[in-house]
């Protein structure tokens, strides 16, 4: 029964909507009512922020009709708001849901969305701050917070890899002509580099396989959050893993990376000149290995001009 942080909703509707300022005040009030978390049973909360009955508050600015009270009519919007953004959260985080279980995942969703409502014109960005939230408020994911962090990062990386921009790729000839001490290469914005504590790439594949089997078993259209689990996927054990989430021909892929290769790519992304980026790989890496890695990355189109 908490209000989202930030601006507290206005307590009363303006008496007259005769200016842009009054319209803004009205919209703040209504918005405050719409985004308040639902009460048990997916009903609108029965009391307003100041303790007055919500029915009384709603009746101040919404007309009833012969079938619905003002409360009922406002509740339609309150419910639609939460159903919409929770569905979006569920769609974006199937791995996190599988790892936490439905009840815990739902609590996490409500806590996150109450604190981080959408600030973007697109729901694509809804979970952009989930990793930071999990880190800051581990109580929602304990005792699986480390895994939850990996999954939040991994699932956001998939969003980035899906539709982030692609810059013009650099050719081997262009790289060969440049001075390695000064040359700064770019890494495609759609390539996400992840140093993880769990092999969540294989875990995600198992979750996707399970969900694909489940969806093939039934043609019924169901809200994402109400889908029943058919079987559990074994949780991954602790195992340091370095992965790039990327796309090829507009399909998503996960690519395991060796640690030195990961370090080179991370250094390139940080803007280091080529020679220093290669040095970041550390000792024990042969020039042949580095050449081989770069050849593969360029083949995948990862290496591009810096912005």
């Amino acid at each position, binding site marked *: 029964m908490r209000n989202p942080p930030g601006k507290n909703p206005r307590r009363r509707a303006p008496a007259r*909507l005769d200016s842009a300022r009054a319209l803004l005040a009205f919209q703040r009030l209504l918005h405050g009512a719409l985004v308040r978390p639902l009460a048990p049973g997916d009903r609108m909360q029965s009391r307003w922020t100041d303790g007055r009955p919500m029915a009384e508050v709603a009746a101040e600015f919404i007309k009833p009709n012969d079938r619905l009270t003002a409360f009922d009519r406002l509740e*339609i919007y309150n419910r*639609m708001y939460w159903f919409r953004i929770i569905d979006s959260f569920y769609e974006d985080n199937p791995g996190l849901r599988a790892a936490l279980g439905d009840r815990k995942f739902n609590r996490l969703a409500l806590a996150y969305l109450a604190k981080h409502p*959408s600030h973007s014109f697109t729901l694509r960005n809804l979970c952009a701050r989930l990793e930071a939230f999990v880190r800051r408020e581990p109580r929602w994911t304990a005792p699986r917070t480390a895994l939850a962090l990996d999954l939040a990062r991994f699932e956001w990386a998939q969003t980035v890899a899906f539709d982030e921009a*692609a810059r013009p790729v650099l050719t081997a000839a262009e790289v060969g002509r440049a001075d390695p001490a000064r040359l700064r290469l770019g890494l495609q914005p759609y390539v996400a580099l992840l140093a993880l504590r769990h092999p969540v790439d294989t875990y995600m594949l198992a979750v996707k396989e399970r969900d694909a089997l489940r969806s093939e078993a039934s043609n019924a259209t169901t809200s994402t959050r109400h889908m029943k689990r058919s079987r559990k996927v074994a949780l991954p054990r602790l195992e340091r893993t370095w992965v790039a989430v990327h796309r090829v021909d507009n399909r998503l892929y996960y690519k395991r990376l060796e640690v030195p290769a990961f370090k080179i790519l991370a250094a390139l992304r940080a803007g280091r000149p080529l020679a220093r980026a290669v040095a970041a790989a550390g000792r024990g890496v042969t020039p042949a290995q580095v050449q081989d890695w770069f050849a593969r990355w360029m083949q995948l189109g990862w290496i591009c001009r810096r912005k």
Partner: protein
Amino acid sequence: MPANAFNGHTDYGIGLGLRVPHYAHILEKKPDVAWFEIISENFMCGGGRPLEVLDRIMEQYRVVQHGVSMYFGSADKPDREHLRRLKALVKRTHTPWLSDHLCWGSVDGTYTHDLLPMPYTLAAAKTTAAKIRMVRDFLEVPICVENVSSYAEFHASEMTEWEFLSEVVERADCGILLDVNNIYVSSRNHGFDPYVYLDHVPHHRVGQMHIAGHTKFEKYILDTHDHPVLDPVWKLYAYATRRCGVTATLLEWDDRIPSFDEVHAEALKANEFIADAKSARKKPTAPRSRAA
């Protein structure tokens, strides 16, 4: 009107909403479709599959942009990043007109992702019209605003929905995307005569129409876009076409989406009503609301 300044002087006929489950069918089978309406926000990204699909679609088809989050009625100023990305997409698609909803949905930079009804006041109409003008001037493309379906009415309203719509579009000098299903849904939820609504909108500003299915609940109707178009909506569409002229029409089907062929066949049913309207327009159409 078939072709007017608000739809870029085009005469597009019957189109379909471009939806993900149909991508493969469309790209492979290349069905004969007059045009596709795209949800702008789904393609306002940097790259990847969305833009690849869009480019391939545009090789074969005409595309019109329809937005869901400009929120002309929000008291907030337009989001600059949103506008920048939208303009980039407009340049990519060469959309002859662009539509979005006559509603609000964001406040203080927080988005509800819903199409919330306006309080129908003169001040709200002025604020909304100013924002439409601002967006149109920035995007340099004709704009049509769509009436939304609604489930609540406000004490603060000073006029009817159709009076508000007329006030806004006259002040903004923009077009109307007349959603016939939304008129029907709201008429049932609020107890007004949908034919009165159709009689009183400025017909010469109608640049496009929407048709869709809805769901009836015990106490209200919800605009779900998950069914075929229901008979009362077809009748209303026929009347709207007689009043406004044969206008670019699009079927929206967004949930429980059946096969492409089924959606296409449903959209093409509009042809029957267009033919009727064409013959009926040879005789003057009496306003049904006043004649009744």
